[in-house]
């Protein structure tokens, strides 16, 4: 794309973003005239703008924290749970493999230390667990316990071993049968949630 063209795309994109969404189509219609390619380019950027959400709005350090902390200091014990090892890191905290006092293996999600003092995050963290707790379905992870202990908030839930759908899709194509099976399981889980009046709003692979 030549520089003038890029500037034009940027100009239209910026003007359209400032407009109310329902006025954008009309604006682009008038501004692009018959230039279908130009319009498509601006529209695809607008749609990316709409979908991007929090993308890169945090800081690279949030991502880096999980990469650089090869040996993070982690709690040995939270409440009745013995923490065994780190399984993964997410936006709100870390998930550990832990065992309860009966020796049962659980997935232990701990709220990130930096969020503990933030009431809003604490509330969201606990609300999410209570929502899942209200559901009882073979395709929905079972939450065993929610609580506060040893200076942190935790959610203990069923440990699910295996690989993520995202990973399966990246490593190869799925057979039609498997696709159907997965889709049916996802749909029945969502239906069970809907019956309880819960809407997921963030379904992804």
């Amino acid at each position, binding site marked *: 794309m030549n520089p003038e063209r890029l500037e034009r795309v940027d100009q239209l994109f910026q003007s359209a973003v400032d407009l109310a969404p329902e006025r954008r189509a009309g604006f682009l219609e008038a501004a692009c005239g018959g230039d279908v390619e130009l319009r498509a380019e601006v529209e695809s950027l607008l749609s990316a*703008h709409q979908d991007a959400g929090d993308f890169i709005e945090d800081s690279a350090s949030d991502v880096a924290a999980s990469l650089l*902390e090869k040996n993070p200091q982690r709690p040995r014990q939270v409440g009745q749970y013995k923490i065994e090892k780190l399984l993964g890191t997410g936006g709100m905290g870390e998930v550990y493999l832990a065992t309860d006092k009966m020796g049962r293996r659980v997935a232990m999600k701990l709220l990130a230390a930096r969020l503990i003092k933030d009431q809003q995050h604490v509330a969201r963290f606990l609300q999410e667990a209570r929502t899942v707790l209200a559901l009882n379905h073979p395709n929905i992870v079972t939450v065993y316990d929610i609580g506060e202990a040893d200076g942190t908030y935790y959610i203990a839930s069923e440990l*699910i071993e295996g690989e993520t759908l995202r990973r399966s899709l990246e490593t190869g194509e799925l057979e039609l049968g498997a696709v159907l099976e997965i889709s049916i399981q996802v749909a029945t889980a969502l239906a069970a949630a809907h019956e309880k009046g819960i809407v997921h709003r963030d379904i992804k692979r």
Partner: protein
Amino acid sequence: MAAFRHEVTELLRQWKSGDEEALDKLTPLIYAELHRLAHQFISRERPGHTLQTTALVNEAYLRLVEQNDVDWESRAHFFAVSAQVMRHILVDYARQHAAVKRGGEIQKVTLDGEVIVSRERAAELVALDEAMQALHEIHPRRSKVVELRYFGGLNNKESSEVLKVSETTIERDWRFAKAWLYRELQAR
């Protein structure tokens, strides 16, 4: 250390007055210091702390620059170099991390979509870096804005000082770059 600090401070001043060669000398000095601090962070156990780029860069700044002898513009320039350096360090780590072979380990525990195995995030960071290089090809300044803000933790005012454009331009560059990069990564 005092002589070293004087050198860094002096190079910052020269760069600010338009001497591009000063930047070439400055970058490795800042790189060495940030790399050292990042490594220290890895080996040191800091309970309850997660790494903050800005904290790291601030620490480097305090160590490398003579405080009472430098204006805020030079400070912004220091942070600009640091943003670039942090990008290298972080993406390097991410690349090593993303390359770790899959073993028989448990991949993921699902409670919600938020729990992401760090290797996936590492791969995302590497992909972002590549997309930023592609954006740099067609519009270097917009890619730079992302580097300053996302990797360096600079705000719009500091970014506008470094790039010598208005804050409004920085904000417009940011939203264009964000949409562009998002689209680029979705298409991969």
